[in-house]
């Protein structure tokens, strides 16, 4: 699974496709304090990004891929 859902933490891995977006949305809708770990992520489908942005998800770690991080961090950074 590209997204591994733990109790209160979602681990994103490799490429997360559009199919994951619905599940991610449902999962986030029930957990307002959930943390998202993107460190192993290499690409995120736009639909997922949109869910994360809407949920203003708490990102616990950013992607190791610097270029992807540069895209995601400004968009997902909280409290801005």
């Amino acid at each position: 699974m590209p997204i591994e859902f733990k109790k209160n933490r979602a681990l994103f891995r490799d490429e997360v496709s559009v199919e994951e977006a619905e599940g991610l949305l449902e999962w986030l809708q029930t957990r307002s304090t959930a943390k998202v770990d993107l460190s192993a992520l290499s690409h995120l489908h736009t639909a997922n990004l949109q869910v994360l942005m809407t949920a203003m998800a708490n990102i616990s770690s950013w992607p190791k891929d610097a270029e992807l991080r540069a895209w995601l961090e400004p968009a997902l950074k909280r409290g801005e």
Partner: protein
Amino acid sequence: MNSEPMNPLPPNPLLEQFLSESADLLEATAKKLMQLEDSPDDQGILNELFRCVHTLKGNSGLFTFPEMTRVLHAGEDLLGMVRSGRAVYSRELADRLLDAMDYVGLLLGEIEATERIDASRALESQRLAEALRKLMPSLLSNGDTATAAGFQGASSIAADARNSLADGPGAVLPQLAAIPDAARKSALAQCRDGDQLFWIAYRPQRECFFHGDDPLNSARHTPGLMWGRVLAAEPLPSLAELDTYSCLLGFDLLSNAPREELDQYYRYLPEQVEIAAVPAQWLAKGQREMSGPGNASLAADPSRARSEDDEASFNRILAAQRQILLLDDRPAWHAGRLKAVAEVLANLSQADGETSARTDIQAALAEALTSSHNTLLLAWLDTWTATWIATWRAASKTMQPEASLPCVRGADGRIATAQTEGTADAGPFAESDPGKVRADDQIKFGRRAEDSITGPKSLKVDQAKVDRLMNLIGELVVSKNALPYLAQRAESQFGVRELSREIKGQYSTINRIADEMQDAIMQVRMMAVSFVFQRFPRLVRDISRKLGKEVQLVLEGEQTEADKNIIESLADPLIHIVRNSLDHGLETPEVRLAAGKPATGKLTIRAAQEADRVVIEIVDDGKGIDPAVIKQKAYEKGIIDEAALERIGDQEAINLIFAAGLSTAAVVSDLSGRGVGMDVVRSAVEKINGTVVIESVLGNGTSIRISLPLSMAVTQVMIIESDGQLFGVPMDNVVETVRVPKTLIHTIKQSQTAVLRGRVIPLKSLNTLLGIPAAPRSNSDDELAVLLVHAGSAELGLLVDGFQETMGVIQKPFNGLLSGLSAYSGSALMGNGSVLMILNIREIV
């Protein structure tokens, strides 16, 4: 970067396909344009035309042919506007588009020959593209964003963002403020003065996920990407109301890729993307203007812009340069290598805000080049590295962590390496375009279903392959013909009758199959005359417009088929004839009206099959040919003498237009009148064993009739015997065979003649003509065999020893040493394995 290939490039299948496909598309485009001329309101044709040009443009974008893409892009934009009713179709527009298509055709030819487009074409391409753009209603006055007008159908989602861009490039300036300083600085460092950057506002459609788009992915892989950000194009709803499958995000991107490349990249989403040009200097300007007074010091301090990534990549680059300088081999490109290093260092120092360093580096480089020691460069590198790291360390201690990481590829080292490579083989200060380097692996070769061209279900086969089949079947026919001889020998020599019958049985089966096979292969080589005809609508249109004549062209029997070689060799003579008809034959509307004819002239080109020949007629209803004028002209040019002037009849006079050097046009134009033309037509037609006949009625028009064999592959020959040898004479030359009693042959002066059917026919002995020292043999009734042939326009009797059957042979031209033998047109193999020489009657008489 000029990469002249040392060796011929290996054939690129993709390029080959591109060339053949583009040729088809060009043809279709020209055809559609002509059709559109007749029915300018036909939306269907317009759509097809648009699709043709669109596909052409898209395909050209697969390769680096910006000249071609530029013109096609302009054409596509223009057609797009015509399609959506924002521009009006006109003759002028059609002219410009046809010009553009001609130019593209020219480029295709060039690519086919050299696999590249000469850089000198760029100017022309610009001119053509401008001419096309001029025809567009000027929605936008600024050239930079003029292309934006080409996008059809504004998507409501991004309407406001688009409008702000459409206001002109100035509107982009505030947008540039969105770029973090760090990103802007390093983007600026990658640019040279005068570089053009592009601001791309990408607003995906809401439903784009359903189309399989992943906008973030598209944005990430944008060619030449320097910076980009994600933003919510619309306010995001609450989490409970979010529709996962409706895209609400948008992207702002900054790229240094060429415009063509960006257009190509986003060619499937033109309506979702807005691209505006941003001169590179604006990045610098933007910085000064946009940073508030409090930030001024920030901007002035270059160390502020550094991130950890920067440090890592700077170090990597410096290490790489150091390594290059330490190399102790001295290859031929050593100087280039040094220059490349120097350039990289200069760029690095500039990126770091150190502008004075360049002169130091230049001096060090000059020293290194003359002394062939790198010490000075190396020393500079080391000191600079040391000071740089020192200042860096100091600066980073006081520096706040960056608010956001710049998404600048140039800073992550990858591009830096690309740049190193780019400059290393380009030499010192050549343009290196990092965008291009990257673009190579990002070109999308996938095509969408709607791009496929629906065409006839046919194979494109190289002609050589068909020719080989043809040769093989020829050999098969010959070896098959050996079987009856074998059967005969089995019976007469070995007395095995049973075997002989069996061989004959097998022979008839093989014979049938071989015949069918030969027929089938002939069919493969058959081509419709439409191949030649299709260029006429354009030709007639162009010429008649140039001459100020109104001409209606009627094409008939386009589906008539003949051998490919015949069809191809027909093209040039036909063009000559059509030009002649338009120039000399058809009158201007005023003259026509005065003569009581409709103002529009009619030119009919008709093809039909008659027995084993194709007949093509070119008929015009023009002023016809005046025999008196022709006679006079021919006399003036010395083609006929005074006696002939009096003697020849009208038809013969008209036939004089086939004589070389005759031109009736008073003024030499670029169309006709140079005195070459009809004689060329005749010789071209005769070369393929055809005949051409002209008929003309003064005042009513001219009709030219060309008759051609269906196929040249199989020649019907009559086999004749002379001095014990067999020769073949093409049946096209044979008029009749007669036996003339020796007593009826008279000798007038030195030549023999006989009266046949009331006409005096000169007789010549084939033996004499071929230099065989033997007299023609007569039969028991003391009659000589006379083969009546026509050589050119004259008829002649050939004295031979005897006649044999006629047969279809596959004639092989001579090559090598024998090719100089003009007395024979070729050779053919007979069933018994012997070689039959085919006489070239016209040459020997």
